[in-house]
């Protein structure tokens, strides 16, 4: 894995790789080079399987992070490529022509994060939600609790407890000593 990164480092711009395990590594790449890297990894290095494509909302940095996790089954290696996108104009590059499954991931990202992938098949169609009109629900500026409160009625009399304090009260009523 390391050796692989060394080999590629000359031609592509990599961020600092994070090794979760020996066979699992995260590395940030430039958006413009993503396609080239993926193609090379797929065709030359044997990373034939797109394990997942997902996103992280770094609202504080005003960025979305796309994670392309690809897997080499022969060598049992998993490499995750991170690409940062601008949060305001969230548009990624479709890779459905490299892995057809990517189209489905991209539809999901479009719906849940509002990241567009122009050219991806059926990307504008509904994926899981039906008739969703609000902010994409996985964005961190979407307040799911507030939305839930404003949309679905509570049953009167329902109580909500913080699990930690509640269980403490139920199970260890006299802890710490003299608390009562």
């Amino acid at each position: 894995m390391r050796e692989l990164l060394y080999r590629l480092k000359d031609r592509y711009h990599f961020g600092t790789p994070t090794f979760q395990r020996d066979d699992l590594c995260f590395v940030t790449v430039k958006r413009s080079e993503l396609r080239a890297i993926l193609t090379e990894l797929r065709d030359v290095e044997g990373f034939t399987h797109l394990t997942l494509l997902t996103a992280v909302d770094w609202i504080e940095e005003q960025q979305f992070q796309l994670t392309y996790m690809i897997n080499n089954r022969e060598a049992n290696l998993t490499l995750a490529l991170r690409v940062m996108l601008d949060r305001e104009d969230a548009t990624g590059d479709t890779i459905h022509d490299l892995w057809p499954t990517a189209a489905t991931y991209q539809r999901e990202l479009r719906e849940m994060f509002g990241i567009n992938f122009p050219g991806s098949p059926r990307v504008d169609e509904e994926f899981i939600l039906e008739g969703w009109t609000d902010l994409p629900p996985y964005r961190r500026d979407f307040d799911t609790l507030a939305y839930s409160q404003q949309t679905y009625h509570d049953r009167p009399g329902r109580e909500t407890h913080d699990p930690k304090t509640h269980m403490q009260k139920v199970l260890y009523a006299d802890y710490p000593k003299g608390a009562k």
Partner: protein
Amino acid sequence: MEDVDDKFLKKNKEVPLREELRPRKVTTPDGQEIEIEPLRDYFCEAQPKVHPKAYSKIVEDFYNWARSNSLWILGFGTGCGAIEMRPLMTPRFDAYRYGIQWRPTPRQANLLVISGYLSVKTLKRAIRAYEQMPQPKYVMGLGSCTINGGMYWDSYNTIKRLDDYLPVDLYIAGCMPRPEALLHGFMELKQIIRKGEAEGANKYAENFAQYKANQKAVIKDWDMPDYNW
């Protein structure tokens, strides 16, 4: 609730009608152009009716006895509770001995068991299935999710109170309730039916406007007729 963010305001946009339901023009074989209005042309527009009980009390009692001993459940599992219903068919619990059986089509079922949390998307299907069942029909809510949202109390996409949307005859508490609890629930339901108190369908018809308003408030892309016959 104290931790609700008051600054967040949900958007209430209209969802456009789906393409296949929009009125359109087609050309007939003789070249005439006709207007198709799918919702009106394909679906019956009649409202549900309140069906009175049989004239004679004896007959009605007999009917109720038969109904209570022949509960046909729609094989429709909505959440994790669906897995709790399977053991009922096994030798250990054997619900068949109580006249309970599962039917694959709503037309032949008269008991809808909402077996767990209902996402809005599933709610739409549950409503449709419920409305397609013949009267009298009964609804059982399974687990705390149907009662007050349960662990999905803050989900953006899961309803919290089933009885806002469908007339529930009986709730079974638990997360999830075990098959024994279900069996007990069925016995309770039988008692209710025999007493002639399981008139959920009539209640639904009486308060149809209210129920519909509640349903449409959460299902924004209401892409079906008001009442699914």
